[in-house]
C-alpha cells in the first residue's frame, strides 16, 4: 500500500529554564493509506508532541521543530507556509483530542462547531453545511441529530462529546486522523463504544489513523502496526502481533509484564519496571532506558543503541535485543 505519511528523523525541542528538552529526538515512522498505526508510551515520552508536530501545532517560541521531514502525500509539511498548512489542518489531517470538553468551544453550538470547518475548507453554504452536520452526527450514532445541532457541549455527556469530536474530524473526509488518547477520559463501556466506532468508520471510509495511547490493550485490539516510544525516541516497531508475541526491547517487555491481565491466572506479585523515566533535559549518554534496564551491559550506558531491523521490519533499538529472554511474555 502507498505511504500516506512519512515522518523522518523528526526533532522537536523545548527551551526551558532547565535547559533544552528533547521531547522528540530523531523519530521516524510511517502510516500507509487506510492503516491504523499506534504510538505507545508513557507520559513525557514525546508521543503527543510528535503528533502536534505533524499538525505544526507545537507552541512557539518555547517549542521548535529543529529538524526532520514530515512527508504527507508527497509534500513536506514542514516546508509549507502557515497559510498552506491551515488548509491541511482539519481537511487532509484531522485531530481528535483526549479531553473533548476542553477542545470544544463551550459558547458555540454543536452545529456551529461542525459547520465551521465545512464552510471554510469545503466552501459549503450554510444550508448544505447544516445538512452535512446532521449526516455526520447520525454517522457517529448520536440520536436525534437535527435537534442536537442547536445544543451546547455541556448538554452532551462525555461519550457523546467524544462522538461529536469524531464527527468533526470526519467532516471534510480527511485522509488521516490523529487520535491523541481518544478514550482515556472515558469509562470502559463508553471507551469500547467509541473505539468500535472509530475502527468501523476508519475501515468503511478508508481513513488512516495514528492512535496515540498508553494503553497496551487498546493497541492490541485496534492497531495494525505499533511504535513504542521511550524518552523521545522510538525504541521498538513492528506489527502488533510481533510486538506482543516477541518483544525485542526490554522496555516493551517490561511494560507488558508489569500490567495485570484479565485472561491470566492471578500472580502473587507484579513485575514493575524499577526507577523513574529520565529527565529529558539531562539524558544519559548511552541508552535512555539503561538505568532501569534489567538486561543492561556496560556498552548500554556508554553508546546509544542503533536501531536494528529483524524479520519483516521488526525494529528494536537495543544492544542486547538478540539475547532477550525467549520465553513468551508472562
Amino acid at each position, binding site marked *: 500500500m502507498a505511504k500516506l505519511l512519512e515522518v523522518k528523523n523528526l526533532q522537536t525541542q523545548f527551551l526551558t529554564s532547565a535547559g533544552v528538552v528533547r521531547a522528540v529526538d530523531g523519530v521516524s515512522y510511517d502510516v500507509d493509506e487506510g492503516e491504523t498505526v499506534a504510538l505507545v508510551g508513557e507520559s513525557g515520552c514525546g508521543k503527543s508532541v510528535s503528533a502536534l508536530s505533524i499538525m505544526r501545532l507545537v507552541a512557539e517560541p518555547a517549542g521548535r521543530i529543529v529538524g526532520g521531514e514530515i512527508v504527507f502525500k508527497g509534500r513536506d509539511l514542514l516546508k509549507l507556509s502557515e497559510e498552506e498548512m491551515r488548509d491541511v489542518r482539519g481537511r487532509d489531517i484531522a485531530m481528535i483530542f483526549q479531553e473533548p470538553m476542553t477542545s470544544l468551544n463551550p459558547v458555540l453550538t454543536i452545529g456551529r462547531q461542525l459547520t465551521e470547518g465545512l464552510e471554510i475548507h469545503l466552501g459549503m453554504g450554510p444550508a448544505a453545511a447544516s445538512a452535512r452536520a446532521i449526516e455526520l452526527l447520525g454517522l457517529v450514532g448520536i440520536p436525534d441529530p437535527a435537534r442536537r445541532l442547536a445544543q451546547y457541549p455541556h448538554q452532551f455527556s462525555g461519550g457523546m462529546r467524544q462522538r461529536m469530536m469524531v464527527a468533526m474530524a470526519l467532516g471534510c473526509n480527511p485522509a488521516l486522523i490523529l487520535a491523541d488518547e481518544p478514550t482515556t477520559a472515558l469509562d470502559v463501556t*463508553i471507551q469500547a463504544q467509541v473505539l468500535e466506532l472509530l475502527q468501523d468508520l476508519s475501515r468503511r471510509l478508508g481513513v488512516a489513523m495514528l492512535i496515540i495511547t498508553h494503553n497496551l490493550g*487498546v493497541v*492490541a485490539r485496534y492497531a495494525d502496526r505499533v511504535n513504542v516510544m521511550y524518552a523521545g525516541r522510538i525504541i521498538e516497531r513492528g506489527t502488533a502481533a510481533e510486538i506482543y508475541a516477541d518483544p525485542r526491547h526490554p522496555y516493551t517487555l517490561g511494560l507488558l509484564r508489569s500490567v495485570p*491481565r*484479565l*485472561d491470566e491466572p492471578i500472580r502473587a506479585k507484579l513485575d514493575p519496571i524499577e526507577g*523513574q523515566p529520565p529527565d529529558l533535559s539531562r539524558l544519559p549518554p548511552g541508552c535512555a532506558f539503561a538505568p532501569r534496564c534489567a538486561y543492561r551491559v556496560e556498552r548500554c550506558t556508554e553508546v546509544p543503541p542503533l536501531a536494528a531491523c529483524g524479520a519483516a521490519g521488526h525494529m528494536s533499538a537495543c544492544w542486547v535485543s538478540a539475547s532477550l529472554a525467549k520465553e513468551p511474555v508472562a
Partner: protein
Amino acid sequence: MSDALLEVRDLVKHFPIGGGMFTKPVGVVRAIDGVSFSIRKGETLGLVGESGCGKTTTGRCILQLERPTSGSIVFEGIDMVTLDAAELRAVRRRVQVIFQDPYSSLNPRMTIGQILAEPLKVHGIRRDKGERELRVRELLAQVGLLPQHDKRYPHQLSGGQRQRVGIARALAMEPALIVCDEPVSALDVSIQAQIINLLEDLQSRLGLTYLFIAHDLSVVRHISDRVAVMYLGKIAELADRKAIYDEPLHPYTRALLSAVPIPDPKIEAKRERTVLRGEVPSALKPPSGCVFHPRCPIAVDRCSAEIPPLREIRPGHWAACHLA
C-alpha cells in the same frame, strides 16, 4: 459477622440539587441508594464501577467526609454515623485515605517532612519533635523513599514518589482501614505496578485492611480478595474475586469484563465483545425497576417493573438480577 472490621448497612446518600435559602430543591441525586457490604480484618475489598456509580461517595461516607442520608457504618463495633465531631476524631485516626492525585492532595508549600509530621502533631501521637523526626524517617523507609526526601517539596518528586508520600501520610496514624480511592489511575503503567506491590507489601507487614476503589478491572482483580461491582448507586454483584471474574452472574459485570481490552492481539481477535448500548442514566432520574435494564442485553419485562434485591445466589456470591 464477628470478624468484620467494617460493616456498611443500607447506606444512602442523596444530594439535593438547587434550592437556596428560600427555594425548595428541584431534585435529588441518588449517589448511593441502599448499599450494604462488610470488610473483614486484613482483607482487600475492591469496589469497581464507572464514573458516577457512587463508589467514591461510598468511600467518602466511610471516611465521614460526607454524612450519609441514612444507613449505618459500623467500624470496630461503633456506628460512626451516630458520633459527634469530637468522638469522630478518635475514630478517624483508624480510618485513613489515599487519594487518586497525590499532587492535588499534598500541600505544595510544605516539605514532605512537614506533611508527614503534621498529623502526628495534631493528633498528639508524637509530642516530642525528635520523636516525630524519627517517625517520619521510619515512614519514608516503609514506603521506599530515602531519608533526604523529607526536605523536598511535592513538586520536586515524580508522580510515583508523590503517591508514596500519600501512602506514608496514611500510615502515619497507624490505621486499621485505608480507603484507597483510585490510588494508581493517575500513574504511568510502569509505575503502577511498583505502587500496587508496595500496597500489598504493607498490608501483609502491618495487617492493614483496604477498601480499594478503582475503575480498572485488571488491577482490582489483582489486588482484591473480594470485589463489589457498583452501578448507579447500587451494588450489582459482590463475590470472591475468582467467582466474579470467572463466573460473573450479573449482565453488567459481564459487559464490563468484556469491555476491557487484553494486551494480546491474538486473544483480542478471537474474543467476543458485548458492547453496551447507551450510557449510564442520570442519578437524578434513575430508571424504574432494575437500574441497569435500559442497557441490559437480556432484560425482560419484569426488569423494568421490579427492583431486583441483592440475593446470595451461591454461597458468598451475591447478585442483584432477576435472571441470575
